[in-house]
């Protein structure tokens, strides 16, 4: 089961890790982008914390929509609309529920993924956040279908996100500002895939009480 309290805790955990790793994310972006990914996410998640309802205050849709609106309004760049669309689709999918079962959480995350695809028009292998998000959700679906407990399933998802993130290193970027580098983008880990792994790891750690 996944509750509104856990969604709030997930956002807080994500915000804390973005603070810790903002410099690292920005450095990755300086290598192949325009050098602001960590700064932009930091601004967005600080705004998300301000707008986030308290634990137990309202439904899952309300909590995730607050995160979405903060990111869309404060992040800018490509990551603002992309992460904003991700959380907004999750919010729509979960709606007024205050607690959902594991399959419904997986379905909401999948709706988030589809929204990122629709907004960014990237394909797997383009060296984007999808390269971490796609494998993570495939692993989650498989684990949930196999009846594994949610904590274990999300650990599998986070591990797959990490593998996907590392697998972006040799790729040549085909979307976003890194694509201007062409072949020179190979050899660098994608900043968007790195922040997506951070988000998935924060979810796994939250559900597992870490």
């Amino acid at each position, binding site marked *: 089961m996944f509750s509104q309290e856990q969604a709030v805790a997930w956002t807080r955990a994500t915000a804390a890790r973005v603070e810790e790793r903002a410099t690292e994310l920005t450095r990755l972006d300086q290598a192949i982008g325009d050098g602001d990914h960590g700064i932009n996410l930091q601004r967005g998640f600080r705004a998300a914390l301000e707008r986030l309802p308290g634990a137990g205050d309202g439904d899952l849709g309300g909590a995730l929509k607050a995160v979405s609106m903060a990111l869309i309004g404060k992040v800018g760049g490509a990551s603002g609309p992309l992460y904003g669309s991700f959380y907004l689709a999750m919010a729509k999918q979960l709606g007024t529920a205050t607690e959902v079962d594991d399959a419904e959480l997986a379905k909401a995350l999948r709706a988030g993924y589809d929204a990122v695809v629709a907004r960014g028009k990237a394909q797997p292998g383009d060296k984007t956040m999808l390269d971490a998000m796609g494998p993570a959700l495939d692993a989650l679906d498989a684990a949930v279908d196999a009846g594994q407990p949610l904590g274990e399933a999300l650990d599998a998802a986070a591990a797959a996100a990490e593998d996907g993130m590392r697998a972006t290193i040799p790729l040549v970027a085909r979307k*976003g500002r890194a694509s201007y580098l062409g072949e020179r983008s190979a050899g660098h880990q994608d900043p968007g895939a790195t922040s997506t792994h951070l988000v998935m790891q924060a979810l796994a750690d939250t559900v597992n009480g870490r």
Partner: protein
Amino acid sequence: MKKLINAVDDFVLESVEGMCRAHADLVAYNPDPIVVYRKDTPRQGKVGIISGGGSGHEPMHGGFVGLGMLDAACPGAVFTSPTPDQMQWATEKVDGGAGVLHIVKNYSGDVMNFEMAAELAEGTRVESVVIDDDVAVKDSLYTQGRRGVGGTVLLEKIVGALAEEGADLDAITAMARDVIANVRSMGLALTSCIVPAAGTPTFEIGDDEVEIGIGIHGEPGRERIKMESADQLTDRITNPIIEDLGLTSGEKVLVFVNSMGGTPLAELYVVYRRVAQLLDGGGVEITRSLVGPYITSLEMQGASVTILRLDDDKTRLWDAPVHAPGLRWGV
């Protein structure tokens, strides 16, 4: 990092505030969401022209708000596209009942944020054009495509003049697409630049190196080469433009030589001299010119060349009066 800033987080807003104080007769701003707008907007029956993009390119875009150019500009954080709430606010502010044109530079973030804003703007007819004039980037189905760079300045001037004449949204959108089809640019960087919030240079470049095909956010371009003479470097960024535009003898053009922020005017004229020689050689006539820092990358040293193929309409619209903080003639 040594910059004239108070606090990193206040930089964009304080800069906008200063510009609006300096040009209080022309422009004003809304602090949240941050939008620079023409003092006399909305004008009933006039199509509103809006642009926006990351800050750090001054005078673009805020400096181009005024008579005969933009009705509003949405400044994002430095080198970061603005957010949909800014464009939505600006769209509603400048709508005089004749619709609004969004001028968007082709970056994934700008395109997505403007798309979301157009979806949010209910009750206003919005058209969007995406400018992608940078020949340094290979255009293909599998990439983001070419970036919007120096041609944006010329586009905003020409389209703004047409809106001032009272043309309707369809005619203005068609003219915008016509300009986009006939303008190309390419730039180079001698040094990097420091985004205030990052505090370190966006990229490293040696004292004896030049980045050919630089983007306006310090994104790398075609290649990194050893330093050469001004003429050799100018050839490297001008010939691809001439080739891509397919310029032929007898055609008329506007040449725009732009500073990335740190290159002085004297060097820009050395570049302009060489561009003129190259065009002379091909029998192409330069009938209009613009030289100076108009679309910059903070303090980066470097320059870009933009060439626009002119016809009578575009020449007339270029010559039309403009009065904005960053561009003024005929007034």
